């Protein structure tokens, strides 16, 4: 009897966790986008108001964030400072590819962020400010799309997970 219960709990939790994992893809993406946007706001302050050169700016931001973003900014900063790169675009893209692998950002987000690397640091303050504003708008669009997807899918996958577990339990018992 107790074995049945243990078995049941195991099946239920296994399927439930699978469901949550699938749901996370949708529920955590908006959060990751928001965190990224916050870091970009810090970058804008450093650039527009501080006139800080990019390698220093990235270093400063890396100190203020956590997780994959921290590694993202510190990696780019190190590469630029180390003289092994003379093209911000390629270094930025490299970092973005890695970042997308470590977070819940999708490839659509990847393209958008990688595109920003092409204009970062390559024009004067006023121009940079305009690029930043455009980037914010685009990020917001992605965030809203992600929220919508989350709304549609998060609950569904979680429920699916638990209930499938229940069904299997019932069938086997």
């Amino acid at each position, binding site marked *: 009897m107790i074995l049945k219960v243990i078995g049941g709990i195991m099946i239920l939790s296994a399927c439930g966790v699978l469901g949550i994992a699938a749901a996370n893809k949708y529920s955590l993406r908006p959060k990751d986008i928001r965190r990224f946007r916050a870091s970009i706001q810090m970058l804008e302050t450093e650039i527009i108001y501080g006139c800080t050169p990019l390698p220093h700016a990235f270093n400063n931001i890396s100190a203020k964030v956590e997780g994959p973003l921290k590694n993202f900014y510190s990696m780019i900063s190190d590469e630029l400072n180390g003289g092994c790169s003379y093209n911000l675009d390629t270094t930025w893209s490299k970092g973005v590819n890695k970042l997308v692998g470590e977070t819940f950002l999708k490839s659509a987000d990847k393209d958008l962020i990688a595109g920003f690397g092409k204009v970062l640091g390559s024009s004067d303050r006023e121009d940079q400010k305009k690029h930043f504003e455009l980037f914010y708008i685009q990020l917001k669009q992605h965030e809203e799309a992600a929220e919508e997807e989350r709304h*549609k899918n998060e609950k*569904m996958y979680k429920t699916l997970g638990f*209930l499938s577990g229940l069904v299997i339990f019932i069938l086997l*018992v």
Partner: protein
Amino acid sequence: MDVNLIFKIAAIGIIVAILNRVLTQSGRDEIAMMTTLAGTVVVLLMIIGMISKLFDTVRTMFQL
């Protein structure tokens, strides 16, 4: 005739109903339909033995 079986069938019924609701709510109508279908098939499989026994019983009863 197993009370357990009745409970099982009931539980599956409820679960399928919930799944149906959740799936239609998130717009996946085709999957909802498939789930309902699957649920029905599963329940049928569970009681196919009993149904065949029922028919046998009826046949024997009427041949009597």
